[in-house]
């Protein structure tokens, strides 16, 4: 008999960039997509992004993971004045840190943008549906905030 344990927090699926471009464009590890868990991914999303399940944040906090950094910061979110762009994405999952959490992942394959390698899922190669997943990882100590210079 299994015991049902209610989750205190919802789970989100995040997409992480696996390559870096010039400054102010995406960098390796940047969180580029956040969504409620779905049944699969797109054909071009398999090789260009690494997908993870994350837990531990409140529901309304997840979308913030996909925001840019602005200077000066406007707490209203209405940036009508001149701003200096600081970074395309505020939050990231450094792959070196991810390797510490999940030592079996292959960083070379993750960084290969021609490889559909998704170590945290089993991916149907025909229609890119998820078959199984490895379960969610805690956001704590994994997601890095470029503004505060610290992990969440």
């Amino acid at each position, binding site marked *: 008999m299994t015991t049902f344990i209610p989750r205190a927090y919802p789970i989100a699926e995040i997409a992480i960039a696996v390559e870096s471009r010039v400054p102010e464009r995406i960098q390796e590890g940047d969180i580029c997509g956040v969504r409620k868990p779905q049944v699969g991914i797109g054909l071009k*999303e398999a090789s260009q992004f690494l997908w993870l399940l994350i837990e531990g944040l409140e529901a309304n906090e997840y979308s913030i993971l996909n925001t840019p950094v602005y200077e000066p910061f406007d707490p209203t979110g209405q940036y009508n004045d001149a701003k200096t762009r600081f970074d395309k994405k505020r939050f990231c999952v450094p792959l070196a840190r991810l390797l510490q959490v999940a030592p079996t992942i292959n960083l070379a394959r993750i960084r290969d943008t021609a490889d559909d390698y998704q170590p945290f899922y089993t991916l149907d190669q025909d229609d890119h549906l998820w078959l199984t997943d490895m379960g969610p990882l805690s956001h704590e100590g994994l997601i890095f905030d470029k503004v505060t210079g610290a992990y969440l």
Partner: protein
Amino acid sequence: MASSRKVATNENISTYGAGGFGRDFTVLSTWEAASDLDLISAAQSEVLELYDDAASFDDFVKVSGATANSTYFRIIRPAGVKGQASWQGHDGTPNNGVYIHSTGDDIVFDSDEDNYQLQDLIIGYTRADQNNFSLRMEDPGTFQAAVGVIQHHADGGLSAGRGMMLAGEDNFFINCLVQDTDRFGYDPRPGSGLFVYLYNCCAINNGQDGFLSSNSDGTANIVLKNCLAYGNGGEDFETGGEFDETNSTNNASEDATAPGVNERINQTFTFRNAGSDDWHLDINDAGARDFGADLSADGDYAFDDDIDFRTRIAAWTWDIGFDEYFSPYPIMSDREPDALVFGNRIVR
């Protein structure tokens, strides 16, 4: 002829939809990140075509950072060809077509990138504090345009805060509709000394004002042409003093607030089926039909089609609002032998 929907040069088209349908992307922002490139150096444009795989998609995106110009730029639009079975976009109403409905805290479609185009989607959001926007185009991006975009909130209640915000410089809303927000429809906020343009847009049944004019820099730098406002809880066109009364023209309102020259105030509009959110003009309309200005040679954004891709013919006088009235069925006239009538227009 110049369509309001711009086509880019050397388009690299990716697809978007639900997982399991064989699309390229299932999240708008992953496409945005993947296509954030120096498009000019690459001599390539990036286009995302959306498929109507689900009743709605809970998603949002900020398009920002790609190096673009008027030749090479980014576009988000429905897949398919209007008028054919392949078409995934709307039918000029919020009832059919690709619907992006965000439940997150971010603006659904946000952008600050030169020449970016958002075309023919239905958009909305659910947020309890009512302080979000469905769409925002802002500086430093210029010549951005939302064309044929419909914002609608079918669920009412908590969902429907604010409409579309147009900021920055030389950005455009063309043939758009905002209806049923709890607050206002359009919020134009051009920068100091800069201009933004709303052409043939409709604001219908919003809780407060249809078109705001008080959030800019205090100067008259919001240009409205052929815009229609109806059924709004506040003023149809806010009397805030920032509409460009000289260059705005042929706007129509149910109340006495339509700005510019050739304005049509205190009008009664007749729509095809308002009860089903079909705001196309009816043949019996006498408030907006045949009262518009011809913008086919407009100096800032020349175009000659409506929300349904139908060509607005100058000889027939443009209609005000997103729709150019056109009978769906050609009929033989019983008034003049040997004449073919489209709607009330006679073609010999």
